[in-house]
């Protein structure tokens, strides 16, 4: 009995906070746009009894999903989102790995402080942190003024409102999610393994590729998914730092909801996004499971 209650808690949580909202979104995506409040039809009217339920279900169709295929804006936005998220994830990995490595090799007494410093940015509002990048990256921003001050460039670089700014924003925002799992994988590694590799004739660099990288693989995989999944649907960063040509599905979604007030199409976009994300999530979970088996 007690066990059942314990198990029920996470399931209730999932039901209330994931499944129910998802079913609502799914339902809206199957509805039609209506000039009403809420702005879609049909509505379930239980006063009409059985006939009302039947009317409700016959009113649902896949029209919005077919609409998504007719306008190439959508699939281009999906594709571009995946591309931007993938590139940004790779950049985050390249920046995050050395940091995690340095942390794991730092003297034991420094590590808690270093961990703290990695988490520290979360104490400031995400929105403010992204906004402050505008001040850094804009034409009159800190970065350009600094570079011109030391005479490295003659005229200001245009970084703000380009994809580069979006990459910078994503790398900056999601870096801790990359660092933490890699750090935890590297920290567990026995340093004598590297000595053993060197002793057996590999150079330091070879030892890194043959031992350190494979042993931190689980951390790398976890970090990449933790960055990739939220950055596909990212809305704040592309809309603040990106330009007019930055096409990301989060922005499209926003416009459908708030500019066009087309909730059914917006919901359809969201449902497809979810389906796209389920693929890497399943892959991620499978790799986690594998890692757990190997670690035993």
């Amino acid at each position, binding site marked *: 009995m007690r066990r059942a209650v314990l198990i029920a808690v996470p399931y209730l949580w999932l039901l209330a906070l994931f499944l129910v909202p998802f079913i609502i979104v799914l339902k809206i995506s199957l509805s039609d746009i209506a000039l009403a409040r809420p702005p879609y039809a049909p509505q379930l009217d239980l006063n009409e009894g059985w006939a009302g339920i039947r009317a409700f279900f016959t009113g649902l169709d896949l029209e919005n999903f077919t609409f998504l295929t007719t306008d190439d804006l959508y699939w281009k936005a999906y594709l571009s989102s995946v591309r931007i998220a993938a590139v940004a994830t790779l950049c985050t990995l390249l920046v995050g790995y050395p940091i995690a490595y340095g942390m794991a090799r730092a003297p034991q007494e420094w590590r808690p402080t270093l961990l703290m410093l990695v988490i520290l940015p979360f104490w400031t509002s995400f929105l403010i942190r992204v906004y402050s990048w505008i001040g850094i990256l804009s034409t009159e921003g800190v970065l350009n003024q600094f570079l011109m001050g030391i005479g490295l460039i003659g005229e200001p670089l245009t970084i703000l409102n380009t994809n580069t700014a979006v990459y910078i924003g994503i790398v900056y925002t999601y870096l801790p999610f990359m660092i933490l799992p890699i750090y935890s994988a590297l920290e567990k590694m026995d340093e004598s393994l590297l000595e053993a*590799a*060197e*002793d057996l004739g590999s150079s330091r660099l070879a030892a890194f590729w043959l031992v350190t990288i494979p042993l931190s693989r689980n951390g790398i995989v976890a970090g990449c998914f933790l960055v990739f999944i939220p950055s596909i649907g990212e809305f704040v960063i592309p809309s603040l730092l990106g330009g007019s040509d930055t096409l990301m599905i989060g922005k499209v979604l926003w416009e459908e909801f708030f500019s066009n007030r087309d909730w059914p199409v917006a919901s359809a976009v969201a449902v497809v996004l979810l389906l796209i994300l389920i693929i890497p999530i399943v892959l991620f979970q499978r790799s986690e499971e594998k890692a757990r088996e190997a670690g035993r």
Partner: protein
Amino acid sequence: MADSVFAPWNDPEAKPLIQFKGVTKRFGDFTAIDDLTQNIYEREFFALLGPSGCGKTTLMRMLAGFEEPTEGQILLNGVDIGHVPPNKRAVNMMFQSYALFPHLSVYDNIAFGLRREKKPKDEIHARVKEMLRLTRLDRFAQRKPHQISGGQRQRVALARSLAKAPKLLLLDEPLGALDKKLREETQFELMDIQEKTGTTFIIVTHDQEEAMTVASRVAVMDEGRIVQVATPDVIYEAPNSVYVADFIGDVNLIRGTARARPADSPPEAAVEPTPETKPAPPKATASTSASIAERTGPQPNTLGRALHDKLLSPIFGKWIEDEPRRLPPPSAAEAPRAAAPQTPAAPPRPQDIPPGGLEIDWSTGQAAIIAANGDPVLDGEKVVLALRPEKLGIAKTRPDAPNTLKGKVIDIAYLGNISTYHVEIEGGVMVKAQAANTRRIARRDITWEDEVWLSFTATAGVVLKDE
């Protein structure tokens, strides 16, 4: 030592494989290795033994290339390797933690070093197979390290470090993680493999039994220095210092003042084989023997003593037990002390005590201990007699021995095959004696609180200068 015995260290012609020349290693202010000079020869199984922090691991890491000497040279086959990185040395190491690559199978772990050499595939395969066979791991080739037992892991680590056929294999506490039984089996396996492959092994251990079992020579280290290097038997039987005597095995240390014994001929100080690092004992010079001759008191009436020993001792023994204070007059060697009123009567002295050596006054009210193998140079010095418990006899009646001590059994440690008796000698000194339990324990006649006699021969102990 016979010629057939493996002992290149005694051969001045032999070329050492490893030479430490004045090697010093400092970590900041801390000196881990202090001006160390030592040769290690090919095919040796050399054990570095010492308490933790004595520098043995640092020494090994310098050989592997993980540490560079601060001063001095380390030569491998005559070539200075002090600053050669670990991946360029013909030296392999078996790590204490084994350091097996957890993401690779047993096969790939063993092949790791060979693949770095870019050898042809079939050659690598053949070598790995050979190593698997040598360490009896054929069946586990495709397993991952976490899927095999501790003993098997230990063998994988050994196979991996031997795969490249190094000139020198370093073993850092290789058996530390195994339980006692498996450790003992593995020790013999190690010796077997060492003999088969002909590789020079250097083993670091803090387990003296392990060092004694496997090694051809043992180096006892303390605070960055090698205190003594010798074969296990010499280390055990003829330690060169109180530190070594105390570190290796169980020992009774009896402190006292040495007094030269009369000698018929110049005393032979080195009865035992001379350990390598032991400073050559200064031979008794003519003047020393002359002075000994001068000190010689009146000789005992040998005929009277012989008669006494031959005819009266059976009765005599019983008589001593009852009334130990009424003993025959002391021998000449003890004559000066016999005058002292509190001196107990001297024990009977068999005729076969070798002349020369030392006597040790160790406790007022006790007869001096005869150490015929003592170095007369120590005359008048503060000395320590190191006496192994198994070299002491224990009996309820006074035995006929050069040295006897009377005491009371305080404690008995029963170890199954042997028992160790903790005996308190009159005067308060505790002495341990060991006896094999040849009879069933129920029939053991010595028990707690018993008055017993401990006895040992005139050459049972080792006389060492007190530090």
